[in-house]
């Protein structure tokens, strides 16, 4: 029995389930918090579940919420694999959104041309915003965590300025409330709705297709190999002839590009205009941070990010349903998300300890064999 457990705990496959164990741990602690707040955890979690999956519309909303998480998560997979900590997806998403909405407002071309161009421009806008901290890290040795956080704050102010000024809907500019939002884009920029009357839009297909593209990029191209090599060991990579600074810039640039595309798709797929509420997460809904959570949960694997984004999309949609039923604020789910991050990175210790154990077992085994061999090789005395 003891051996059975030892074998289960030593199984390598277990590593793939660590995120699920981490999520369960977060839910268990969450249940304790709900009890402290005087709410029955079962009622709350049930409300969450049915709010996220209960009917066609709920399911569609879950997927709609998952789309930006998946796109940003894909970018995070690329940058984190290169050990580049891109915390700037919030800003990159904002800039992508700003540029693609400005393009949509200015250019009056037919949809088959304008829509893909608009998305591409959002992609490039995010790439540019990501490239700045990339260049600063690669060539000026500025820590990317700090520069991307600064770039987030700058992007938020840029958005507040543009949506409250030059890009503001002329109708709002005359209205009393002066909501910070742009005018509505024309039909050419509307991504197809897949399942009316729900808001499920074609952006989900783009995101899914890109998951496979990023998978191929990371694991079956030279560029992907270089990016992963830099993350694995920058010194060895440099020794092996890889230009490390260049890979760092590319990793941040690509990471930003996916966040920028998420911003464009959020506009072309949902509201057909850019809206904020004055808070830093008014446009993004915190997708920049939740995208990191998504990527980590998916094991920094582009295909793992697909179920992970679905899971966190469900959490976000379920949180609102839970708030309606139990009056527990939806920020409860923010706490859950944070705990999942902490537990996922902490769980890596199990993997490490097991590998050490295996190495040590291997070492004792080999030394024992060597001993046996030396005994048998000793010529008989006398």
């Amino acid at each position, binding site marked *: 029995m003891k051996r059975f457990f030892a074998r289960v705990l030593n199984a390598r496959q277990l590593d793939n389930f660590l995120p699920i164990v981490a999520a369960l741990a977060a839910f268990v602690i969450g249940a304790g918090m709900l009890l402290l707040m005087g709410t029955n955890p079962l009622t709350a979690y049930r409300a969450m579940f049915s709010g996220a999956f209960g009917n066609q519309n709920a399911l569609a909303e879950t997927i709609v919420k998952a789309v930006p998480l998946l796109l940003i998560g894909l970018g995070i997979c690329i940058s984190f694999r290169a050990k580049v900590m891109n915390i700037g997806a919030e800003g990159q998403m904002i800039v992508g959104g700003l540029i693609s909405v400005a393009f949509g407002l200015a250019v009056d071309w037919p949809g088959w041309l304008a829509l893909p161009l608009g998305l591409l421009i959002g992609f490039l806008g995010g790439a540019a915003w990501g490239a700045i901290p990339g260049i600063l890290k690669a060539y000026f040795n500025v820590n990317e965590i700090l520069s991307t956080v600064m770039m987030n704050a700058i992007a938020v102010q840029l958005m507040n300025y543009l949506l409250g000024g030059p890009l503001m809907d002329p109708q709002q500019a005359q209205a009393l409330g002066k909501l910070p939002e742009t005018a509505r884009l024309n039909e050419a920029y509307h991504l197809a709705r897949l399942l009316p009357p729900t808001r499920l839009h074609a952006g989900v297909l783009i995101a899914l297709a890109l998951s496979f593209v990023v998978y191929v990029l990371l694991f079956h191209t030279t560029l992907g190999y270089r990016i992963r090599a830099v993350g694995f060991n920058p010194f060895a990579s440099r020794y092996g002839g890889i230009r490390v600074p260049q890979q760092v810039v590319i990793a941040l640039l690509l990471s930003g590009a996916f966040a920028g595309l998420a911003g464009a798709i959020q506009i072309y797929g949902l509201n057909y205009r850019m809206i904020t509420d004055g808070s830093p997460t008014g446009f993004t809904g915190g997708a920049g941070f939740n995208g990191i959570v998504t990527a980590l949960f998916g094991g920094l694997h582009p295909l793992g990010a697909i179920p992970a984004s679905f899971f966190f999309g469900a959490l976000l949609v379920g949180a609102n349903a839970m708030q309606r039923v139990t009056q527990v604020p939806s920020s*409860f789910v923010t706490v859950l998300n944070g705990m999942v991050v902490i537990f996922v990175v902490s769980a890596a210790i199990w993997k490490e300890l097991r590998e050490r154990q295996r190495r040590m077992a291997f070492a004792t085994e080999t030394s024992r064999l060597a001993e046996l061999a030396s005994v048998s090789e000793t010529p008989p005395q006398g």
Partner: protein
Amino acid sequence: MDTSQLLSATVLVGILTAGIRLASPYLFAAIGEMFGQRSGVLNLGVEGQMLMGAFTAFYVTLRTGNPWLGLLAAMAVGALMGLAMAVVSVTWRAVQGISGIGFYIVGMGLSELLFKTLLGEVKVINTGFNAVNIPLLSQIPVLGEIFFRQNVMTYLAFTLVPVAWFVLYKTPLGLKIRAVGENPHAADTLGVNVAHIRYLTVTMGGVFSAMAGAALSVANLNVFQENMTAGMGFIAVALVYFGGWRPFGVLFGALLFSMVMALQIFMQVYRVPVPSEFLIMMPYVLTMIVLVLTVGRVRAPAALTKPFVRE
């Protein structure tokens, strides 16, 4: 009011006075973070610890009417969060950059959750730390007004800087902290317990971050709002790099940042014809520029972000 008034003597004194006051949360958080980094641990959860500290201090002060009790409660909560970060990053050797983000998200969510369930709406307190005039010194013209009519948290923050310098460079503990951050294996060989030192610095970092939050909610602003720190915790981390991991470097960075912040506020008040969004951007742009100019000249602690495993 017009722009030219911005350069008058009274306004300049106003900007400097505000700048000193605004520096206090950055100082607490950045000095705490500096100790953690000097021992080899990057704590990115400062923002979350600040938010929890700000809420705790505000809530306890609101209920008891005593800001000292609020501050103590905030410090206890900060110690708990720091301790949790230490368990995760020292004992479990988790990737520090990411686990810190996790604590940031938890702190942000939890402070918001507590705010919504316990307070429900934005409230203001009038029992926070008020300005205290230092006898005699506050009578000095100009300087007295700028430096010696501040609130208790501001005095504490500025006192912390020389104390931190003394501890770091003139005490055995400071030597151990620096040794653990530079070469943990050597320190370990000499009998320094690497884990204990890191637990101490990261837990203390949590306490200081929480004090930074309290400096906002019960001294400078006397209010609590969701996500009220708005990135200050991350700026504090940037200030540690910026200050070259030295207490007086951190002080210089914090003052530079807070003075630009104060200038920006006064420029808004005096209706300088520049969109306010661009004024708010200024300190962030400035931080980026100074990071580019200064980083690389000072070397980071060699063991920063590297978990210690005894071979």
